[in-house]
Structure formats: structure tokens, C-alpha cells
């Protein structure tokens, strides 16, 4: 271990500020994002009809939300394990995780849809009769799947996430100013319970918001499945944003090839984990072959979805698995960042594949796909705009974290 004593730059060094070129993008992105989001949702709703419009919105929402809560988990786990290497990229994750607060507001259309029946099949009048579900079963189902209780639970999840995110964000910000070591200690101490609350909320939010799109379907692993996509995409986004920030001129010396190497390893690991979880879920349902469960996969193996399923298997697992296996790839920042960007696209397709078949109109055709894409781009732009606005008022690295030195000097072996 050749321990290079890397000098820590002063907190007000320009390397820690958001480059002006990026800061200027904030407002256009916010405005453009809102326009695209609203436009996309309306276009999707009017062009395809049915529950497709709100489903497009849900895809966009879940895409941003998974990134945000994935980042939240990243931050929590770094504190929980007292990690040193990640300090230089942690602020990027913190900026992403705090986006759960605007996302909580963006949940309102989904909450409304639970009453109007424009998204969830269980909230559509006559669902029980159309599907011949016995009264006794539907009565118990409705105990869980009814609008009031649904919205109440959603509020709990959002409150917990926002609470944790805000608390960790504030702590990190305060440390930027004061440099108190006790703040790190406090953040560390609370990270255990926070992770538990997080895991509980994430798992149940996945059941409520996504799994209940197919009201009669159930899979105990579904929460883990959504979580896996979320943590994978969050790592990719951290890698991508760090790279973009560096290109724009910030934290040039701070984030080194070693950090990309480490992020690359984690991305590789989570690609495998995603493959493992999705395969296990498929395998168990395929093998037992019980009609109550297979219909979810049956929908996804007919009507054009089959191609998407195969594509996901090859492109979301096979190709990036082979692509990011080598150390040589992970140690080239632009290369691993390209893979990260690629995974972020595939994560969107994954969510499209999870959510859209339940809207009941097949793939949605070119119109549907474009409308959904506009929605997603709109929401992502909105989030980016807000993040940039936030970042402009603070620093892009946790400058006074006591482990910054360790992170700067970090080397893989």
C-alpha cells in the first residue's frame, strides 16, 4: 500500500462547486421537463386511451423513484459500513436521494388515479365481475386494495423516505460548514434503523404501486426485484453523473480511476444480482406452473412482449455481464460510464416491461412508446433541473467529511 498523502483542498475550492455551464441548464430543464411530462402523459392518454396514459406516467415515476431510493440506500449503506472509499461520490448520491421530496409531490396523480380507476385495475369498477372473482376472496383483497388505505400507506412510505433523505442530506450539508466529526457518528448510528425502515417501505411500495397493477398476482420476491433494479440503476447514475461533472470541470482530482473501478465492480455485481433475482422469480413460477402465478409471465410472453422478455434477458443481463466483467473495462472511466448509461436505458425498458403489459393494450405501438418516452424524459429532466438547482447552492463533494482523505487516497488491489 503506497499511501499517498493527498492534500485535501479547502472547502471553497472551485473544484467543489457546480460548474457554471451546468448550473445554467437548471431552469430550462425544469420548465422543459414539466412541459414534456404533462404533454407526454396527455398525449399517451388521448392517443392510446384506457389505462395507458397513467401507466406511462407510472413508468416515468418509478424510473425516477428507483434512482432516488437506490441512491438513498447507497448513502445509508455507506454510513452503515463506515465506508471510506465512497466519500468523494457520496454527495452525488445525496443530491439524487433528496429528489424523493419532489417525487412525493409527483405522486399526487397516482393517488388520484386510485380513486378514478385510471391506473390500477383493482380500482376499476366491475373488475371483480369481469374476472369472475369469488366474493369471499374479493372482499379480503379489498381490505388491502382500496383507495383510502392505498393512499394512506403510500403516504407512510413517502414520509419515511423523505424523512430519512432529508435528515441525511441536512447532516451532510451541516458538516460541509462545520466539519464536526460527531455528525458522521450520528449519521452512522442511525443508519441501521434507517435501513430497516427503508427496506420495509421499499418492499411494500413495490407490492402496492407496481405488483398490484395485476391485482390477483403475487410474488414474495417482487419487492427485492424492484429494489435490485433500483440499486443497480442508482450506482450507474452515480457513475454517470460523476463522470459528467468531471467533464464539466468539477472534482477533477478527487474522483479517480480507482473510484470508477469500484463503482464498476459494484455495477457488475448488481448486474449479476439482477439476473439472479429475476431468474429465480421466473424459475420458481415457471417450474411450479400454478395458474394463479403464471399469468403474469404469460402476459409477458405473448402479444409482442415475448421479444421484449428475451431482449431483456440478453441485453439487461448477458451483454453487460460480459461487457463489465473485465478489470480493463472498469478501469477506463469513459468505458464503464458508457456501460452505466447503457444500463440506465435498459432499466427503463425493464420498468416498461414490468408496468405496461398490465395496461392491457399490448406494447402500445410506436405512439405509445414515444409518448411514454416523452413522459420519462420530461420527469428525468425535471429531476435533473431540480438537482442542478440544488447543487448550485451547495458543493458537489462532501468537503469536510472526516474520511475524505481516505477516499482520496483510495486504491484498489
Amino acid at each position, binding site marked *: 500500500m503506497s*499511501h499517498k*498523502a493527498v492534500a485535501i483542498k479547502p472547502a471553497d475550492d472551485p473544484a467543489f462547486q457546480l460548474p457554471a455551464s451546468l448550473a445554467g441548464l437548471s431552469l430550462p430543464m425544469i420548465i422543459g421537463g414539466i412541459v414534456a411530462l404533462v404533454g407526454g402523459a396527455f398525449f399517451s392518454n388521448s392517443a392510446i386511451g384506457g389505462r395507458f396514459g397513467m401507466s406511462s406516467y407510472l413508468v416515468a415515476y418509478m424510473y425516477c423513484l428507483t434512482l432516488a431510493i437506490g441512491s438513498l440506500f447507497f448513502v445509508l449503506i455507506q454510513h452503515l459500513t463506515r465506508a471510506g472509499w465512497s466519500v468523494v461520490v457520496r454527495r452525488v448520491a445525496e443530491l439524487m436521494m433528496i429528489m424523493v421530496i419532489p417525487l412525493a409531490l409527483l405522486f399526487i396523480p397516482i393517488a388520484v388515479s386510485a380513486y378514478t380507476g385510471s391506473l390500477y385495475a383493482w380500482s376499476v369498477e366491475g373488475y371483480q365481475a369481469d374476472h369472475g372473482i369469488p366474493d369471499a376472496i374479493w372482499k379480503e383483497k379489498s381490505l388491502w386494495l382500496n383507495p383510502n388505505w392505498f393512499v394512506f400507506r403510500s403516504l407512510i412510505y413517502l414520509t419515511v423516505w423523505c424523512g430519512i433523505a432529508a435528515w441525511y442530506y441536512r447532516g451532510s450539508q451541516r458538516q460541509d460548514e462545520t466539519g464536526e466529526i460527531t455528525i458522521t457518528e450520528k449519521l452512522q448510528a442511525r443508519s*441501521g434503523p434507517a435501513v430497516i425502515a427503508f427496506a420495509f417501505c421499499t*418492499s411494500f411500495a413495490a407490492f402496492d404501486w407496481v405488483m398490484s397493477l395485476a391485482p390477483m398476482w403475487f410474488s414474495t420476491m417482487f419487492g427485492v426485484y424492484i429494489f435490485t433494479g433500483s440499486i443497480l440503476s442508482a450506482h450507474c447514475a452515480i457513475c454517470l453523473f460523476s463522470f459528467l461533472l468531471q467533464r464539466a470541470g468539477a472534482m477533477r482530482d478527487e474522483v479517480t480511476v480507482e473510484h470508477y473501478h469500484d463503482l464498476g465492480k459494484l455495477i457488475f455485481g448488481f448486474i449479476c444480482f439482477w439476473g439472479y433475482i429475476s431468474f429465480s422469480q421466473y424459475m420458481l413460477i415457471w417450474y411450479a406452473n400454478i395458474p394463479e402465478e403464471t399469468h403474469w409471465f404469460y402476459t409477458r410472453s405473448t402479444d409482442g412482449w415475448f421479444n421484449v422478455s428475451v431482449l431483456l434477458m440478453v441485453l439487461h443481463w448477458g451483454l453487460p455481464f460480459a461487457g463489465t466483467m473485465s478489470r480493463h473495462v472498469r478501469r477506463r472511466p469513459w468505458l464503464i460510464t458508457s456501460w452505466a448509461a447503457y444500463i440506465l436505458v435498459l432499466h427503463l425498458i425493464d420498468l416498461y416491461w414490468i408496468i405496461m403489459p398490465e395496461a392491457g393494450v399490448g406494447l402500445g405501438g410506436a405512439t405509445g412508446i414515444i409518448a411514454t418516452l416523452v413522459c420519462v424524459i420530461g420527469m428525468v429532466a425535471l429531476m435533473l433541473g431540480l438537482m442542478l438547482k440544488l447543487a448550485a447552492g451547495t458543493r458537489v463533494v462532501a468537503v469536510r467529511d472526516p474520511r475524505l482523505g481516505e477516499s482520496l487516497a483510495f486504491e484498489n488491489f
Partner: protein
Amino acid sequence: MSLAIPNGLDNSNDRPGQRAPLVLGDTNYHSITEAVCKIAEQPPSRAWVIGFLVSVHLATMLGLCIAYLIYTGVGVWGNRAPIFWGWPIVNFVFWVGIGHAGTLISAILYLFRQEWRTSINRTAEAMTIFAVVCAGTFPGIHVGRAWLAFWLAPYPSLNLWMWPQFRSPLLWDVFAVSTYATVSLLFWYMGMVPDLATFRDRSKNPFRRAAYGVLALGWSGSSRHWMRYEKAYALLAAFAAPLVLSVHTIVSFDFAVSQVPGWHTTIFPPYFVAGAIFSGFAMVITLMVPARSIFNIEKLITIRHLENMCKIILTTGLIVGLAYGTEFFIAWFGQVPEEKFAFVNRAFGPYWWAYWTMIACNVISPNIFWSKKARTTPWIMFVVSIFVNIGMWFERFVITITSLSRDYLPSAWAYFSPTWVDWCMLIGSFGLFFTLFLLFCRLMPIVNMAETKATLAKELHMAHADHSHEGDH
């Protein structure tokens, strides 16, 4: 050359930004060698001898039970319709689970650069191998005609005119467990070679020297060798990490691909893996807490190591608890009557006592580790680790037996009662495990000296760098 710790042997507190040392006391390279080699070089202590005799007796009892079983037939077990997977499978899953911590510590913690693994990984790996030996025994004898177990191998048999059935999860299990045993053995042995060379070079007795010399393969410590060795170690770690996951996943497939209520649930793979890690770490604590004080290696296996393991136990215990909850919730949410019944039956049926023992031991007892004091007090963690071991055995009992005892055919429902052979085999498997473990303690380097020295070198270097850094100011 030494790192003095102001507060004695407690390194469980560190200020953020500084790392507490993992090798304590007035330690240098030579004293690490001394401390570890002494364990094998000294005559055995009385505690060791008594422990060994007891273990050998119990292991012999297992051997006799197996002989009796093979001679008489599987009817000597309590397995009766409809519970054909009784204690043997419970014991199998229990031991395979225990066997996960070793490779996990060696491989996954290595990949995550958790340096505290260095002084406990050897013991944990050994524990893995021995647990897998115990685990492998049970399906081996559970096949009925154990002497025909080789039929599981794909070989062109002109007597049978058939091949193994690769679409059966039980065959996947054969491949998974045997691959796991093999790779764990390679990993363990490869990690031990440099330390065996140390034993060789310290041996005065020519026989001992020759024996360790053969095992050490002529290791000389050349930098070129070390370079390839480290690469191989990292690669094996990278292979072993998904392997660990796959093994218990496939064990969970044995249950989950079926349609038995309470078995068929998609969360089984990650939940089994978490449970395996949970029980494995508990077993490591059960072994390490007495071992470190008996063998006097508290400076190498410090409170920090134990505390970290407690934290992992707490985390995985909560994951397992969350999985129990999720299963219950989805059983209700899914509204499949059999599934709903299976879970109510688990908690309030005839096996309620097993279920609540499991909950108490697995979900409730680890919560004591929220307290720093509990995490740093060896006897408390020892007690909790025993509870966790019991709880995890009961988890497998609950899964296997409650689901089978009340399945789709109510007229066939039955209550499982173990026979004396079941009991003796369970106890005997512990005898086998401890016999192997105690032999290992006497014959092999129980702490990875080379890696611990490397950790010490790094800490010395850091301390030096920090010191000179401060001097600059």
C-alpha cells in the same frame, strides 16, 4: 514497530476518519507467527482433550446410527406419510446453512475489502468444510440405498439404461453441494499453503517437517508466486461469492419449485441465503468466542471482529424477520386458500411451539445487538449465537415439517415424531463437526498468518504515514 492501544484490547470504537487497528497489543510479525504456531506446537490442553473425547464419542454414535440405518432401512427414522422429508432434510439444510459463513467471509468480505476478515477467515472456512461434510451425510443416507448413491452421477450405465434427470431440483442440489464442497476445499487449502510453509519451516521433528513440507508444496514466498497467488485468490473469491449464493438458492429450489403450500414462494432464494449467512455467522461466534480465549489469540481476533459479526447477525436476522413477515402478508394477499391455511397452521397449528421458538430465537434474540454493550461482551454474543443456531434449526423444521404434515389431503395429515435414531443422528452430527474442528485446531494454522501480517504491515504503514503527516504541520 508496535501499536499501543490506549484502552487495552478494546478496538471497537474508532473516530470517523481514523481506523482502529485490527491487530492489537505489542504485536509484530514474529509474535503473530508465535501466537498461531504455538497452538499446534504445544501439547494439547486439558479442555481440548476433553472436548475431543466427547466429540469423538458423539461422532462414533453417528457412525453407528448410520450403520444401523443402512442395515435396517429408513424406517428407523420418524419419517412417515405424509412427512417423508423429516429430520434428515432439516439437518441437511441446517448444516449447509452453517457452511455458508466461511466462504462468505473469505470471498464476499474479501471482495468488499473488509479487512477484519483476515484473522477469522481461516476458521470460518474450515467450519464451512466441516459443516458441508455433516450436511452431505444426510441426503447421502436419505436416498435409502446409500451404496447406490453413485447413480446420481451422469455416467453411461449399461445396467440401468438411463441418465440422471437434470430437470429435477434434487439433482441440481447434488451438483451445487458437491461443487461448493470442492471449491471451498480448494479455497481453504490454497489460503493455507503459505501458513503450512510456516509450520514446515518451524518444525524440528523431521516427520512433521516432511508432512507439512508436502502439504506446503514447496512454497518459498517468492514475489512472483505471491502475485499469481493473490490473483488466483481474488479469482476464486469472485467465483465463490456467486457460488455461495447459488448453493442455498438451489437448496431453496428443492422446496420452492414444488407446489406444497408454504414451500412455493418466490422469496425463498434470497431469504434462504440470508438465513444461511445468519446461522453461519452465529456458528462462527459460537466457535470463536471460546477458541480465542482458550488459544490466547485475543490480540488477533479482537472485539472489533466479534462486534462486526454481531452486526451482520443483527442485519441478517432482521432480513429473515422481514422475509417471514412478507411470506405471511403475501399468503394473505394472494388469497390462495391452501397457502393461507399453511401459514396460519404454522403459527397456530400443532407446531406452534416450533414456530414461536423460531421467531423468538431468530427475530427477537438478535435485537439485543442494538446495544453496543451486547455487541462487545463475548459471553452475551455467545449466548445469542446459541439461540440463533437453535432458531435456525427450528426454521428448517418449521418449513419442512409443518408444510408436509398438513398438505392438500386432509385425511393423510399426521404429526411428526422423531425416533431415537433421529435424535442420535442430530447430536452425532455435532460430534462429527466438533471432532473435525478440534483436529483442525491442533493440526492446521487456525489464523491466516500471512494475511494478518499483511494487515499489520498496512496498519504500521498508515500509522507511520499519519505520524509523518502530522509532523509536516
